[in-house]
C-alpha cells in the first residue's frame, strides 16, 4: 500500500506514467477503511444497513449517524471520512432544495446522483484541493420503482446493473444511460465478504421486509469481532410500505432484524463447531 505512487501521487492534478491519478485511488482507500455499508434494492424498496464502529465506551447510542435524509424521499448512506460526507450531504440537500424551488417537483434521485458526481469530480481536477474521501449511496422509491446509486470519490456514479464497484477504474466521469442503478452494493472494511453474501441473495424477488433482515444479517456476519469489538447497527428503508418516504426502520422492525441476524450467526457458529 505504501510507496506505490513514488512521486506521482503528490497532488490530484498529476497523472502517473501509467495513466492513474493516485490521489483519487488513495481517497478510495479511505473509503475502504471505514465501517461496512450495505444497500439492497429489493422488489419494492431499498434497504440500508451500516456497521457503525464504536471507538469509545463513552459513546452515546444513536448519535453520529451515518444514514441521512436528503429530501423526504431520498436516503443517503455514507462511508469513508465522515466530515467529507457531511459536506456532500449539505450539497445534496441544497441541490434538492433548489430543484424543488425551480421546478416544483421533488428531485429525481438519478439527477441528484449526477449532480453529486459532477461536484465530487470537480475536486479531483486541481492540485490545491484534495478529492473527497467518502462514498455516498443514494436510495429512493420513485414512480418507476426503487433506485439505488453510488457516487465514488472519483466522481464515477455507477448506474450499471452489476454488483461490483470498480474502485480502480480510470474512467473519472462516466455517464451511462442504463437507468437501473445498483441491485446491491457494499463498501468499507468487509466489502468483499459482504458482496459475496449479497450475490447469494435473489434481490429481484425479495420483499423489503425480508431485505432489511438480510441486510442486518450480512452486517453481523461480516463484522470483525476481534478488531472492532463494539458496533452499532443502523438500519433504514424506503419503499412502497413507507409510501416513498425514506426513514429509519421502526423499533420493532429493528429489533426483529437484529434478532434474526444474531440467530443466524449462532446457527453458523453451531455448524462450525460440529465440524
Amino acid at each position, binding site marked *: 500500500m505504501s510507496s506505490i505512487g513514488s512521486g506521482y501521487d503528490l497532488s490530484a492534478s498529476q497523472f502517473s506514467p501509467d495513466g492513474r491519478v493516485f490521489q483519487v485511488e488513495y481517497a478510495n482507500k479511505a473509503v475502504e477503511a471505514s465501517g461496512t455499508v450495505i444497500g439492497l434494492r429489493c422488489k419494492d424498496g431499498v434497504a440500508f444497513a451500516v456497521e457503525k464502529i464504536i471507538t469509545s465506551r463513552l459513546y452515546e447510542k444513536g448519535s453520529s449517524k451515518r444514514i441521512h435524509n436528503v429530501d423526504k424521499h431520498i436516503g443517503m448512506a455514507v462511508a469513508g471520512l465522515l466530515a467529507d460526507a457531511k459536506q456532500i450531504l449539505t450539497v445534496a440537500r441544497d441541490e434538492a432544495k433548489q430543484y424543488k424551488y*425551480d*421546478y*416544483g*417537483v421533488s428531485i*429525481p434521485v*438519478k*439527477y441528484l446522483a*449526477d449532480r453529486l458526481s459532477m461536484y465530487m469530480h470537480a475536486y479531483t481536477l486541481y492540485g490545491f484541493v484534495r478529492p473527497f474521501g467518502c462514498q455516498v449511496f443514494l436510495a429512493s422509491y420513485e*414512480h418507476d420503482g426503487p433506485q439505488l446509486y453510488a457516487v465514488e470519490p472519483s466522481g464515477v456514479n455507477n448506474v450499471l446493473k452489476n454488483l461490483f464497484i470498480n474502485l480502480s477504474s480510470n474512467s473519472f466521469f462516466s455517464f451511462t*444511460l442504463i437507468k437501473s442503478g445498483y441491485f446491491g452494493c457494499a463498501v468499507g472494511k468487509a466489502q468483499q465478504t459482504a458482496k459475496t453474501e449479497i450475490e447469494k441473495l435473489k434481490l429481484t424477488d425479495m420483499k423489503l421486509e425480508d431485505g432489511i433482515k438480510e441486510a442486518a444479517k450480512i452486517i453481523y456476519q461480516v463484522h470483525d469481532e476481534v478488531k472492532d469489538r463494539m458496533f452499532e447497527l443502523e438500519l433504514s428503508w424506503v419503499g412502497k410500505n413507507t409510501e416513498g418516504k425514506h426513514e429509519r426502520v421502526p423499533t420493532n422492525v429493528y429489533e426483529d432484524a437484529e434478532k434474526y441476524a444474531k440467530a443466524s450467526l449462532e446457527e453458523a457458529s453451531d455448524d462450525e463447531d460440529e465440524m
Partner: protein
Amino acid sequence: MDVCNPPTYDAEEELLRHQKQYSQMDKLLIPAEMRHQPVSTGTTIIAMEYDGGVVLGADTRTSAGSFVVNRFTDKLTPLTDRIYCLRSGSAADTQAISQVVQYQLEFLSAEMNEPPLVKIAANCVRRMIYQYRDDFVAGMIVAGWDKKLGGQVYSCPLGGLLVRQPVSLGGSGSTYIWGFLDNNYKPNMTKKECLELVLKAITLAITRDGSSGGCARLAVIDAQGVERIDVLGNELPKVYDL
C-alpha cells in the same frame, strides 16, 4: 424534442421560417395613432383534461385597441413535444415567457435524458410570471401529457398563481362562457366530446367578445403526440345570432 433522434438542422431554412413567422406588413398597415396601443391577445383560451390526454383551444385574434393586428394568430405555443401553452394578455410578454421556458425545458430534458413533466413546465412559466408580476401582463395555461400523470392542465394567471384544474379558461372572452362550461362540462368525457365542447365554447366567446375573433385553433395532446386542428371561420358551429 427527442434527445436520441434530433432533427437535422438547416440554418437557411431556419432563418426563412423565422422571418415568415411574423408578418412584416404589420409595420406598414397599422395607422400611426394606433401604434402606441399595446398589442394584446385579448383572447379566449380553453384547456380541458380527458382520460389519456388534453384538448386545447383558442381563438385567433390579436388586437391593438380596436385594430385587429393579426386575424389568424397561433396562440397554442409548444414548450416541448408534448407540452403546449396557451397565451393571453400582452402578446410580447407571453411570447418572451414561452421562449425562455422553451429553452429551460430543452436544457432540462437534455440533462435528465427524458421529456420533462407538465408540472415542471407549468412551474417554470409560473416562476417567470411571479418574478416579474409588476411588469408582465400574462395569463397562461400550460397543458400537456407526460408519462407519470397523463394529461394535465395547469393555470398560471396574472399574479403568479399555479393551480391544476380539469378545465381551465383564460382571456377576455372567457368571461362569456363560464356559465356555458359550468352547465355542459362533466367529468370523464371522451376526446370527441371534449373537442366539440371546446369548439362550441370558443365559437360562443368569439360571437360575444370584441377582442376575440377569427377562427378557432384546436389541439389534442396524448401519448402518441400532438394533433392540430384549425377550424376556419365559415366552418365554426352555428350559434343563434341575436
